[in-house]
């Protein structure tokens, strides 16, 4: 930034095709590789996670699962009605018919399949808890290793400081950024915008650590080594419930993430996450290393 002068900016702008900002090197190799490794990991972790959930499609609060008392917050099952079997989901004591969503019951009317989540969103597509666990733990290890690599690299190369941790000015800029998003006016700057920072801060500093920690709290081996984790999350079954809720939040993040990629310009966004180069908005000040 210090090397930039008004004169350089002006001369670059005249060389560039009209109405285009500079091409900036925005994403380091560490950001790009970890991004795609996570994308693969989270795909398999989600689909095998739903497979594992299907082995006992209920969530509880506390140390144990209430079979002779009530501490379930979510149950997905099926019931018999006069009109035949129906999928039923119970959340905080309120029951819903979720046959249309495939929750509790899926497949055809002649050959219904009774699982929590339908086979279309589980790996394997049929019930196989053992395989689900093998694949889940394999990608769990890669996921955790990638988080570790990302934190070290992003701390050293300044990605965390520059793009992830929101500053007071970012917080102040949130209302303006919300208005810009609502009207589909996106600024493609050198660093992330306020909402971007908040979203990624939430994923990297809250959701990722939380889903790993609650996953480990379900391990009886880890429970022996670190019983404080049971206390931190309020019991093994609460940890399992939090693990599930964080999954829902990550799925929500993914959906918004994809919508934003398309809304903000899929070619440019994809290019920046593949090659690192990103077309900034017109008027973005040029620095050394930019391309026209």
């Amino acid at each position, binding site marked *: 930034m210090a090397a930039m002068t008004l004169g350089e900016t002006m001369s670059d702008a005249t060389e560039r095709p009209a109405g285009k900002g500079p091409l900036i090197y925005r994403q380091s190799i560490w950001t790009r590789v970890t991004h795609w490794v996570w994308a693969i990991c989270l795909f398999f972790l989600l689909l095998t996670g739903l497979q594992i959930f299907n082995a006992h499609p209920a969530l509880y609060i506390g140390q*144990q*699962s209430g079979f002779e008392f009530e501490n379930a917050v979510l149950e997905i099952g099926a019931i018999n009605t006069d009109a035949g079997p129906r999928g039923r989901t119970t959340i905080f004591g309120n029951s819903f018919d979720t046959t249309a969503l495939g929750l509790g019951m899926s497949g055809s009317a002649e050959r219904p399949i009774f699982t929590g989540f339908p086979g279309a969103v589980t790996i394997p597509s049929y019930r196989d808890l053992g*395989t689900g666990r093998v694949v889940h733990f394999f990608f769990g*290890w890669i996921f955790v290793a990638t988080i570790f690599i990302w934190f070290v690299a992003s701390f050293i190369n300044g990605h965390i400081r520059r793009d992830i941790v929101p500053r007071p000015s970012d917080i102040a800029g949130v209302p303006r950024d919300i208005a810009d998003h609502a009207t589909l006016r996106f600024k493609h700057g050198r660093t992330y915008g306020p909402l971007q920072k908040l979203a990624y801060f939430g994923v990297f500093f809250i959701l990722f650590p939380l889903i790993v920690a609650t996953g480990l709290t379900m391990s*009886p*081996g880890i429970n022996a080594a670190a019983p404080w984790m049971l206390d931190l999350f309020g019991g093994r079954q609460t940890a399992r419930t939090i693990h599930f809720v964080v999954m829902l939040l990550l799925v929500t993040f993914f959906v918004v993430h994809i*919508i934003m990629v398309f809304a903000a310009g899929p070619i440019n966004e994809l290019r920046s996450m593949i090659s690192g180069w990103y077309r900034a908005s017109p008027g973005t000040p040029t620095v050394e290393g930019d391309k026209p």
Partner: protein
Amino acid sequence: MSGLITRRNFLRSSAIAGSGLILAGCDQFDFLGSKENPVRQAMEQANVLTYKVQRGLIGDQTLAREYSASEIRQGQRPNGSTDPSTPEYMFLKMQNFADYKLTVKGMVEREVSFSLAELRNMPARSQITRHDCVEGWSCIAKWTGTPLGPILDMAGVKPQARFCVYRCFDNIQRTLSGDILYYESSDLVDAYHPQSILSYGLNDQVLPVANGAPIRLRIERALGYKQPKYLHTIELVDDLSPFGKGKGGYWPDTGYDWYGGI
């Protein structure tokens, strides 16, 4: 162009993204369910890593959490076999297990056997622990029994022994070619763990048949399938491959991880 977004473009792009989500599922990855598949076999190495890291990280004597009596809020939920139908077991059950013997054999200095009365007369340990099923549920109960370590010492485990194989009465699966009997195995760390007990009591009652009478092994730092019910023989070995399909247990033979600590 990337800066220009019309409503139509936006909606069309979102629809494409949405259909990608729906395509995600299906059965392209069902090959991972085949135990012969090399990709699956490579992925299974992650379980070996988990085992080694947990063994390195967690002290051999570190105890599983024990709970207070007030946390026993329900009976111990039975799962798997709940009433074995093998003739040997039904005969023993009829006699209230008077002729039951627990045998320790294999790579030991001397093969030893104990009756139920002998096991009950040995120093006992009681523990209120949480039972975690691989399916995902947990249940807290009080278990009473004889610590396994001293029993193994009475037999004298030979230095080359690496595993205990636990052989059970129950026919967990009945096939056209005969019954498949439940078995499990553990390393000697789990076998000698202070909370590893040959339990004969559950919640201050005699261990019921549904929960593994007369003897169920507790390995408290592992999932439920590592805690064999209806146990009759403990065999010290240096190799698990001769048993069952060679993976060290009935459930590991069907594709579950052998360690079971996660």
